[in-house]
């Protein structure tokens, strides 16, 4: 059985599944329950300088749903911990004492001046915590006060604060990045320059989940008004995966440890983040939806997968997919595929037909008796039919064998790899010759 033990910036945990800094890690009661359930570590909900912040007294969350009210995306306007600093510190110490094998990282957010950092870091160190995470990502409320994303959106601030923190503590420092920027590599580079031991990403995305069409107000609505919140949950995973990969494949940043965050719900999500470069993952929305118990599925699922792939530790999975993340201009334009519909699996819903006929390439034929087939002469292998088909593996993309003729273009499928940089239609390619 694969060894799930994890070591991230020197912090050991029995598995790579941590709970992210968020409501589930706001107090001792929850964190103890999480550790009892099997979570490998937590990032304690962000501490600040007293007096503690206050939260709204109306709804803090909004959601979007899939079929059967399956929660796909969650938006929150909650702030950092609203409990006194001393209470949190005492509880952190107490939990860490009782669970020495679990990772205890403490998220921090204080005003963008050196003194508050010098004040709070020793207090955290005294608890026996394993590390700190700098919250440069919270996109609402705190950012209006010059903290959170207000720092994370300015690389110079990230570098400056990280440097202060590194100078004031022996603990490993993880810098949590906001996705509300244009290029995730810039803040990651800033963190690196400041001496960060790792980055964690993504924090939540600016969002309005819905609009109350009776009140004409964004949701969640507080007395008739709404403010943007931070979006998370399964819906943000693709955005997070890309940002993780952008850092992992950047030559300058490739050595920077990454803690992957953003919609991790199952073992498979975790494995994907890790394959794209995350050393571990942090989970929040999934436990807020289903409770702490899901970690049991994550442990068994990842363990089984590693065994299946003959990997003996999680380290062997980390970065496995990174070499295959590339730029568009490196994709093989000589690779030709065609959609293929398995008639035995097809249930004749016709969604592939509607999608292709109405919105794509008119490459699916429909017979009188509702048999659907691909017209190879028209199929550009866009994959939309696969994506809209409700039956898994009913429609597949089949690569054409080199040497055969693509009936759409009338051209022989070439064996050789050739990308856009050398394509005759590329003006730049022509100029280069």
């Amino acid at each position, binding site marked *: 059985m694969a060894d799930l033990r994890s070591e991230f910036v020197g912090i050991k945990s029995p598995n790579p599944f941590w709970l992210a800094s968020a409501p589930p890690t706001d107090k001792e009661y929850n964190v103890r329950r999480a550790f009892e359930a099997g979570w490998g570590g937590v990032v304690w909900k962000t501490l600040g300088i007293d007096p503690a912040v206050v939260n709204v007294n109306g709804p803090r969350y909004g959601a979007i749903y899939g079929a*059967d009210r399956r929660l796909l995306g969650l938006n929150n306007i909650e702030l950092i911990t609203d409990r006194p600093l001393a209470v949190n510190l005492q509880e952190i110490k107490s939990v860490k004492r009782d669970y020495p094998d679990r990772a205890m990282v403490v998220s921090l957010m204080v005003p963008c001046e050196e003194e508050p950092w010098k004040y709070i870091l020793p207090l955290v160190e005294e608890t026996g915590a394993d590390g700190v995470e700098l919250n440069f990502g919270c996109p609402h409320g705190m950012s209006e006060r010059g903290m959170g994303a207000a720092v994370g959106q300015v690389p110079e601030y990230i570098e400056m604060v990280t440097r202060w923190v590194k100078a004031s503590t022996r603990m490993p420092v993880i810098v949590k990045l906001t996705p509300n920027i244009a290029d995730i590599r810039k803040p990651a580079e800033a963190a690196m320059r400041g001496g960060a031991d790792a980055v964690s990403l993504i924090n939540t995305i600016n969002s309005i989940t819905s609009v109350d069409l009776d009140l004409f107000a964004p949701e969640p609505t507080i007395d008739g008004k709404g403010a943007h919140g931070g979006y998370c949950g399964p819906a943000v995973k693709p955005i997070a995966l890309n940002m993780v990969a952008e850092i992992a494949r950047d030559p300058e940043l490739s050595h920077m440890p990454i803690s992957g965050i953003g919609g991790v719900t199952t073992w498979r999500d975790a494995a994907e983040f890790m394959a794209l470069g995350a050393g571990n993952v942090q989970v929040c929305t999934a436990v807020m939806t289903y409770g702490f118990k899901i970690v049991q599925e994550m442990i068994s699922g990842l363990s089984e997968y590693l065994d299946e792939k003959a990997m003996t530790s999680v380290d062997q999975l980390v970065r496995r997919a990174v070499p295959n993340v590339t730029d568009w201009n490196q994709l093989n334009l000589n690779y030709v595929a065609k959609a293929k519909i398995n008639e035995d699996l097809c249930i004749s819903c016709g969604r592939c037909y509607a999608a292709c006929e109405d919105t794509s390439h008119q490459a699916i034929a429909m017979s009188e008796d509702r048999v659907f087939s691909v017209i190879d002469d028209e199929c550009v292998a866009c994959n939309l039919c696969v994506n809209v088909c*409700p039956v898994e593996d009913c429609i597949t993309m089949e690569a054409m064998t080199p040497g055969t003729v693509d009936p759409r273009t009338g051209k022989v499928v070439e064996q050789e790899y050739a990308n856009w940089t050398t394509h005759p239609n590329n003006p730049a390619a022509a100029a280069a010759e």
Partner: protein
Amino acid sequence: MESRNFARLRPIGGQLRMKFHSFEIILPVDKKIIPWERYSQQQVTAGVCSMSQKVFEPGIAAGRLEAEAYAVQFSDLHPPLDQHEALVAADRCYFCYDAPCITACPTDIDIPLFIRQIATGTPDAAAKTILSQNILGGMCARVCPTEQLCEQACVREAAEGKPVKIGELQRFATDHLQEQGKHPFERADSTGKRVAVVGAGPAGLSCAHRLAMLGHDVVVHDARPKPGGLNEYGIATYKTPNGFAQAEVDWLMQIGGITLQTGSALGAQMTIEDLKADFDAVFLGMGLGGVNALGAEGEDKTGVLDAVDFISDLRQAEDVAQVPIGRDVVVIGGGMTAIDAAVQAKLLGALNVTLVYRRGRDRMNASVFEQDLASSKGVRIVNHAVPVAVHGNGAVREIEFEYVDGEMNGTGQMLRLAADQVFKAIGQTLQGDALPALEGRKIKVDSTGRTSVDGIWAGGDCASGGDDLTVTAVAEGRDAAMDIHMALVG
């Protein structure tokens, strides 16, 4: 049987306690109550529950059950979906292209569209989608054999053997609209044309509504005291409880321009000639008034009855407990009427109910769902047997059958069943004189409902073609109305 075995429904402190045998089920009263019959089915089937001492009393008797049992026995067969259930059910629809369910619906309701409208929180818009094709969409949602029509065609039936609950969703939408008393259609400006409709059943009402909507003035004649036709008189009580049939007619009439004349029978109060003279067009939708005879010796004995009368009596009864039922009941026939009679005989407390059909199960007009429903209620189904004699001294005591092979040839093997009540459900026949030309035993019509006589259209059970379903009658009435409209103003 001791009455302690009988279910007691007692609200106790915010809970509903359902007790039978040694089990007690406690449900919070604000939750939807699972129908008693679902729980009690096996007990009823085994004949050990819900019955008084009267269960063993031979002959025909009322009140075979404890008084409280009737309400649960005759409650809604499919309880309505609540909001959450409807959303969950609607989420399963794939919104198919050129959806097979639409093709399978005799009224061509745009099913994926109405389900999407439910899923997006607009059940009234969904209802309008349904009702624009099928003005009796509420009744059809209750009585359509959906498992043979839309739900059989549903791609999720192919995928998982579990179709989208189209019928129940249709009911959710139409109930939502109708319970508010809203009528979503407006009558066009008057055309000044007058049309007579004979029969206020599904075909006639559908035709009348469409004609009225198009601006014609319509007079609907019906021989019975109440409108609705088979919806009111010919469908099992548990399929359309709580006065739904009349409520639906009242709702339909909100379109305006329709005058209803009940107690007005063709050939008695008026003739086709009268109608032709007084109106610009005539639609015949009077259904089938006659009942086929068994052709068995002794058929005239007391206790041998028409199933349609039994079903009608139950529907019209102020108190179903007062409807008498035999201890040993035999129903002859293989259609929906036979099933409705047999199941209700059982629900009334008949000890033994046997349904006998001359052909195999696969040839029964009743759907597999209906056959299974009957079996689940404890009705025994006997196939390949024809009645040859009714025995008894004045009143029926036994009925004798001969088994027949697939070609209906007698095998010489006989079957005798104890019977103190026999219901005939072997088909109905068209009645009336001076009708347009017939095809077989029904009025010959073309695809638009035109008969051999200029100015006379026909549809529903009295007309040729169709499947003798409520939904096909609605389609035929609607389509004839469109053709009448074209003929009158086109």
